[in-house]
């Protein structure tokens, strides 16, 4: 279920949300394979949200931008909402200068805020020992 995807990053399922990410080494072939795998997983896992962590990406060129925009549109067509989280500040500056705004792509400051936007909330950790076997 959570084996490493074609992109090298596992696609994890948390409830109805898929959590994955992009590495810096994304090339054309792995981007296409990643798109196919993620859309398939949205269907098989009946996901309603997708969080893509991009905090590892040191650059976003027009190819990666296009991949993110297409992924977002494909997921939306399948009924899932995509949030791209964790863009580095220099990447944001460069993207704007490049003339790319990632139109239609929803973003979050980091993975935690992205998950919150997708309906996940922190709950306090259970008190220590609550799950221990007490039969003894």
């Amino acid at each position, binding site marked *: 279920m959570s084996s490493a995807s074609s992109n090298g990053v596992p696609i994890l399922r948390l409830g109805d949300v898929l959590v994955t990410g992009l590495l810096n080494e994304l090339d054309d072939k792995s981007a296409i394979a990643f798109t196919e795998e993620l859309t398939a997983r949205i269907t098989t896992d009946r996901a309603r949200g997708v969080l893509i962590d991009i905090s590892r990406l040191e*650059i976003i060129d*027009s*190819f990666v931008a296009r991949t993110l925009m297409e992924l977002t549109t494909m997921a939306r067509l399948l009924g899932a909402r995509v949030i791209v989280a964790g863009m580095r500040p220099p990447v944001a500056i460069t993207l704007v200068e*490049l*003339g*790319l705004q990632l139109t239609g792509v929803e973003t979050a400051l980091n993975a935690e805020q992205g998950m919150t936007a997708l309906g996940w909330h922190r709950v306090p950790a259970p008190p220590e020992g609550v799950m221990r076997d007490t039969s003894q």
Partner: protein
Amino acid sequence: MTQASDVGTAARGGAHVYEEGCPTTPTVHEVRSEEDLLAVRHAVRAATLRAGFSIVDQTRVVTAASELARNAYVHGGGGTVTIEFPDRNGTPGLRLTVRDDGPGIPDLSAALTDGFTTGAGLGHGLGGARRLMDEFEIDTAAGQGTTVTVTRWAVR
């Protein structure tokens, strides 16, 4: 070790100081495959560090290099990227020359317009690379390949 420190001394004797022990001689990188595109990005990243660029300037230059190298690979059928370390009155810079022997660009002003694309990209490659760099020159003609030369100077 002796050789490394000799290089450092030579660098100090120059108009500016690159990181000690790092060669600043031009390097040429082939762009024939997807793996080469990644290798070019790594080489350019290392060069921006060597030239003392800020993290934002590093990102600008590596992004521009990625756009131009991909153009050479996709439209030019492959080519080369040359990395040089020019000097302007003591300000270190980085110059990339991206050359291919492809079909050339028949309508240059259209190719520099945002949104113009003949390939799988977004049509921001050439115009975007121009905005990310301080200097931009392009030499192309139908049937004669394309050479793009871009330079960025480190802000001091």
